[in-house]
Structure formats: structure tokens, C-alpha cells
């Protein structure tokens, strides 16, 4: 079970429902019924979609939100609801944990509000959500149609292709298989590989960029020279050659290869940002106060870069998807069905383009890719606001 690319399962639903009992119980304790119920639903939903990997992180998030409704900061009598008699500057471990969780919950709530505020971003979010739901829950409703069906040939037709009909909303492909089921099942692998490639690119770029900026000297020079070298080679042709050199056992290898070729642009940006952030007053103040490397990195530097990093990660995911479909399209990687790229490749080879009856075999995955990429681009608008509070105040 790998995160999101799993198909929704009944045990997952049970796991999610059990996970949801934790925020629900805490909410009942604090008498916050509404957030508790919402938390339980959120846990059940994400558990249903991804099993443990979805349910467990959701416990933390929903619990944090529940606590953020009920939490009263006893150290701060001015802005919180703490009565003067309750003010107490001594903090126990439990109270510290509660304070941190409430902080997390507050940012989750503010983030959700920001997500809803930007119209274009919200539409993008709905688009991404749609593809997520289709990939995870779609297979429950529409079984995968993988075998050829010679028996479905229409009497007057020479091929198995069929135009959309009531029984098969997107028609049949060259082997008489239901195109809709291929669209529903074919997105998972592609989206997951592209997502993984984007995440890996971002990780490599951020780590190397931060190291280059912080360590400076020889390390900086070596990394920068190396990134310049990779930047001289146009990515896609090189990816083509490499993809035909290496035979891929798994999509993870393909994602890794993409990441190894595409980190330099982001790495240079991260390096420049870290260099400039290091000189800011508040970072120098934090260094002067000797707040420690972890505090400075996580609380002072990272929050100022996170919006940029996340937006770039989405961008890498888009480019990765573009490249992977491109590779499949040119026939450079082993074809694995079901996959949107393979549908386009095979459809083109089987002449599906030239006929309005068969065109859905190519048109359906093409539209799916276009809509998914478009949703991602629009979604970044919201993400910018979610991760960069300064953008929110203007609205």
C-alpha cells in the first residue's frame, strides 16, 4: 500500500473509523462536538482512501484542530481566553504538547480558510481532488477491463473501436475494451510517479541548495559547477537517451532519474534565497540570541521559503508528468497498462486519431492529462496563500 495510489478498501474504511475515534473522544472531552464529528469524518475518509498511511497522519491533524478550538493559553492572559486566576507561567510537558498541537491546528484552520478564499486556486483544488477521488474511489465502481473482447464487434464494423454509447460512456478501444475503465485506472501510476519525481527533485534541490549556501567555499563551488553542467544539457533529450539506456524495473527508478536531471534550477533558487535570508535582521537576531541551528532553520528560515518550495514542487510534478508521458509517447519506456500515456501511444499506432469513432481512445487520456495539469497550475495559487500568510492579509 503506497500512500495515495491505493484503491479504496473496506479494511481501510474500518481503520479510518477507528482512527477517527481519537479526535472524536478528545472533542467530547472538551465539549466541541462539531469539530470532533468533522475530524471523525476526515479520518474515516482518508483511512478509506489510503489505509494506515491516510488515517494515522489525519489523527494528528484533526486532533490538533479539535484542541485548537478548546485550548486556553495560560501563559498569555492578554490575547487568550484565560481568566486572570488561571495565569501560570510554569508549563508542564502535557501543556507544552497541547500548545504545540493547538498551534498546528490553528495553522491548519487558517490554511483551509486560505484555500477557500482564492477562487482560481479553489477550482484547481477541486480539480486535483476530482482526480484523486477518481483514482482512489473510481476502481470501486468501475472494474478494470483488461482483456480483449472480440465478441463486442459491431456487425457492420471492421474494427473493435466503438463510439461512446450508453453502455460504454467513452466507447471501446482497439481491443474492444472499455475506455472509461482505462481512464479511471490509468491515472494512478502516472500521477504517483510524477508526484514522486517532483518530491524527489524538491528534496535534492533543497538539501543541496541549503548546503551550498550554508557551507559555502568548495562545497558551494562544486555543487554550483555541477548544476551548471546539468543545465547545459536540455533535459528532455537526455532523459530520452537515458531512459532507453536503462531498463526500468519500477516507476521509482524513472522518478529518481527524472529527479537527478532536474534539480539544478530549483537548487540555484534555493541557494540564492538562503543566502539572502541569512542576511536578514531577524535571522541575525536569532543567531545573536543563540537559538540553535534547528530553531533557526525550522522557525526562521524555512517558513519564509516554504511557499516558494511548495509551488516549485508542484511545478516539478507537472514537468515530470509531461516528460513521463512524452517518454511513453515516443515508446522509450516499457509500456504498462493501464496508463494514460500508453493509451495515447497505442491509440496513435492503431490509427485511432484518424476516425471520429475511435478518437476517444486518445482524446480521453489527453483531456485527462490537460485537465490535471491545469488543475495543478491553478491549485498553486491557493497553495501560495496557504503557505505564505503575508499574501493573505491583502485580501
Amino acid at each position: 500500500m503506497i500512500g495515495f495510489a491505493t484503491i479504496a478498501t473496506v479494511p481501510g474504511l474500518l481503520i479510518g473509523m477507528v482512527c477517527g475515534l481519537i479526535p472524536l473522544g478528545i472533542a467530547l472531552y472538551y465539549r466541541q462536538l462539531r469539530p470532533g464529528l468533522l475530524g471523525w469524518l476526515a479520518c474515516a475518509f482518508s483511512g478509506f482512501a489510503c489505509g494506515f498511511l491516510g488515517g494515522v497522519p489525519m489523527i494528528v491533524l484533526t486532533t490538533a484542530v479539535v484542541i485548537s478550538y478548546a485550548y486556553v493559553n495560560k501563559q498569555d492572559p492578554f490575547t487568550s481566553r484565560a481568566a486572570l486566576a488561571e495565569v501560570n507561567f510554569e508549563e508542564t510537558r502535557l501543556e507544552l504538547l497541547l500548545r504545540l498541537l493547538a498551534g498546528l491546528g490553528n495553522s491548519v484552520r487558517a490554511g483551509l480558510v486560505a484555500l477557500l478564499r482564492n477562487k482560481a486556486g479553489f477550482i484547481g483544488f477541486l480539480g486535483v481532488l476530482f482526480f484523486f477521488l477518481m483514482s482512489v474511489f473510481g476502481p470501486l465502481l468501475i472494474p478494470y477491463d483488461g482483456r480483449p473482447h472480440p465478441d463486442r464487434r459491431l456487425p457492420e464494423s471492421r474494427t473493435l473501436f466503438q463510439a461512446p454509447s450508453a453502455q460504454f460512456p467513452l466507447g471501446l478501444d482497439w481491443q474492444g475494451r472499455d475506455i472509461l475503465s482505462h481512464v479511471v485506472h490509468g491515472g494512478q501510476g502516472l500521477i504517483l510517479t510524477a508526484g514522486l519525481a517532483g518530491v524527489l527533485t524538491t528534496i535534492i534541490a533543497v538539501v543541496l541548495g541549503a548546503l551550498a549556501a550554508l557551507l559555502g567555499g568548495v562545497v558551494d563551488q562544486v555543487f554550483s559547477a555541477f548544476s551548471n553542467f546539468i543545465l547545459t544539457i536540455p533535459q528532455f533529450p537526455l532523459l530520452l537517451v537515458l531512459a532507453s539506456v536503462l531498463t526500468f524495473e519500477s516507476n521509482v527508478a524513472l522518478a529518481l532519474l527524472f529527479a537527478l536531471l532536474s534539480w539544478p534550477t530549483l537548487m540555484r533558487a534555493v541557494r540564492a534565497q538562503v543566502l539572502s535570508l541569512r542576511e536578514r535582521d531577524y535571522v541575525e537576531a536569532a543567531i545573536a540570541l543563540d537559538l540553535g541551528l534547528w530553531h533557526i532553520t525550522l522557525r526562521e528560515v524555512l517558513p519564509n521559503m516554504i511557499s516558494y518550495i511548495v509551488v516549485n514542487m508542484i511545478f516539478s510534478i507537472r514537468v515530470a508528468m509531461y516528460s513521463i508521458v512524452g517518454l511513453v509517447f515516443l515508446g522509450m519506456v516499457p509500456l504498462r497498462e493501464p496508463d494514460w500515456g500508453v493509451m495515447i501511444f497505442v491509440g496513435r499506432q492503431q490509427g485511432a486519431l484518424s476516425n471520429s469513432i475511435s478518437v476517444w481512445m486518445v482524446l480521453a487520456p489527453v483531456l485527462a492529462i490537460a485537465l490535471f495539469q491545469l488543475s495543478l497550475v491553478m491549485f498553486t495559487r491557493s497553495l501560495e496563500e496557504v503557505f505564505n500568510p503575508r499574501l493573505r492579509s491583502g485580501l
Partner: protein
Amino acid sequence: MTTFTFILIRQMPGNPFSIKVEQLMREQNLTVEEATNRAGALFDFDPNRPLLEQYTEYMGKLLRGDLGKSIISSEPVMNMLLRFLPWTLFSVGLGLLISFGLGILIGMLMAYWRGSLFDNVMTAFASVMYGIPDYVIALLLIIVAGVQLRILPFAQMLGGSTPGIEPGFRLDYILDLLFHAFLPVFTYVITSLGGWMLTMKSSTMSTLGEDYITVARARGLSQRRLLTAYIGRNAMLPLVTRLAISVGFIVGGAVIIETLYQYPGLGRNLATAILVRDYTVMQGIFLVIAISVVFSNILADLLFGLLDPRVRLGKEDAS
């Protein structure tokens, strides 16, 4: 760079030689040795020689401008490159120029009339186009305009020129070239226009805030002069550098589009060369790509100094 591609390409599994040897053995019932000799004569290439020896020979010839012969068709690679390159340069270059010109014009007007209906419509259009991959646009173009609506005579528009037409500097040949280049050029324009528009818009916005624009306005200069000589020229500067850099990626960026439209440029031939493992052709194309990237970077630097007097003066002051 050359070394890197050489090593990379020779490491590819399934070289054409062994494929041919196997094929000969299967089809004509030859022994391994006979088949090897036959294939060796066919390909003019000995895979059993040490890699280092092949490499020194390759580099030596390269310095003399000899890129070797194609392993498959035994045509000199240099000739092949010279045959493919004009197509790619023509189609992608034309697309790039059109989209750049349109992009800076629309982007400038968007910033000048910011908040208007024009700005909003164009911003939406730009983000939509920016978000969709080029081959998706190409496929949609083929499907919708070519096959479903039959607006474009799609089947005749594939390829570089109509077969049988005689090349020459004549009107009908040039029109024929433009007719065939229409699909790829249109695709390049559509996909890159959005990016140019948005960059030009933000660049113009920051130029509009400059003091010299306020002064120019106070002097009562005409709108047109303000837009062209003051705003446009300054806002274009960062984009010109980007144009020069993207010239370098012309060659590499066209692989899928050229394959799709069967346009006989470098990109499509790179794809075919990879599929049949034609090492020497692949090396040649990669060399062209690398050279164009390096040169366009130098060009970008030179151009920037030429267009922006401030940079030039700054350098003179420093020296």
C-alpha cells in the same frame, strides 16, 4: 559534454550490430562468425574494439569536423545534421519569434490596462495555455481541427514539404513550406505565448513604477511614444535574455512535436536514432544541442550589454 554523451551512448544495451547479427542468423541460417563478418561489412563498425580506441578516434575526427557515418544508413552524420537542422531552426525559430513578438505586445498592453476586461481575459488565457503540455495541444489540434471538424487538411499538412515539389527560391515552394510548418509553428506559438505574456506583464508593471516613466508622462509625451520608447524598451530587457537562452533549447524541445507532425527536423530524427540505436547520429545531434545551448548563453550575455546602456556604462566605470 562530448565525452559524456559518447560514454552514455555506447553503454546502451542492444546495439544495432548484435541485433543485425541475430537477425542474419535467424533469417539466413548463418553461423555466428559468418553473420558477424557480414554485419561488420554492412555497418562499417567493429563493436569488439576497445572503447578507449573508439573514443580517441572519434575525438580526433571531431576536431577535423568529421562526425563519422551513420551506423544504419552509412551516410555521413554531418550531411544528415545539415539536412535536418534547417527544418528545426525554421519551424521552432519562427514559432519562437511570433510568440515572442505577440507576447511582449499583449503583455505590455495587459500591464498598461491592468484590471480591465482585456487584462483579465488574457491572464486567464495565458494561465490555461501555460498549464497544458505542448503535445496535448498538438493532439487536440489534430483531433479537433483536423479530424472532427475537418477545418485543416491535416493529412496533407504532415511532413516538411509536399513530396515531389522542387526546392528553390520560388513563391510556391515558400508557400508550401509555410503550409507544412503551420501545425508545428502554431503549436509552439500557442504553448509559449502564455509564458511570454505573463513575464512581459510583470516586467512592464515594475517598469511603470520607475521615476523616468513619471517624468516622461509629466513632459506630456504621447501615449504611443510612452509605450514604445519608454515602457516597452525597458520592460523588454529581461525578456530578450530569456529569448536568447530559449534559442538554445530550440533543438531539444521539439522531439515530440516533430514526431507527431512527422516534421523532418532534428528532434524527430533523434527519436528515430534512439529507437534504432544509431550511435553516431545520436552523438551528432547531441553535439548540436550542446553547442547551441552554450552559444545562446554567450549570445544572451552579449545581447544584454548591447541593449541596456546601463550595463555597458557600468562596466566602463568599473574598468
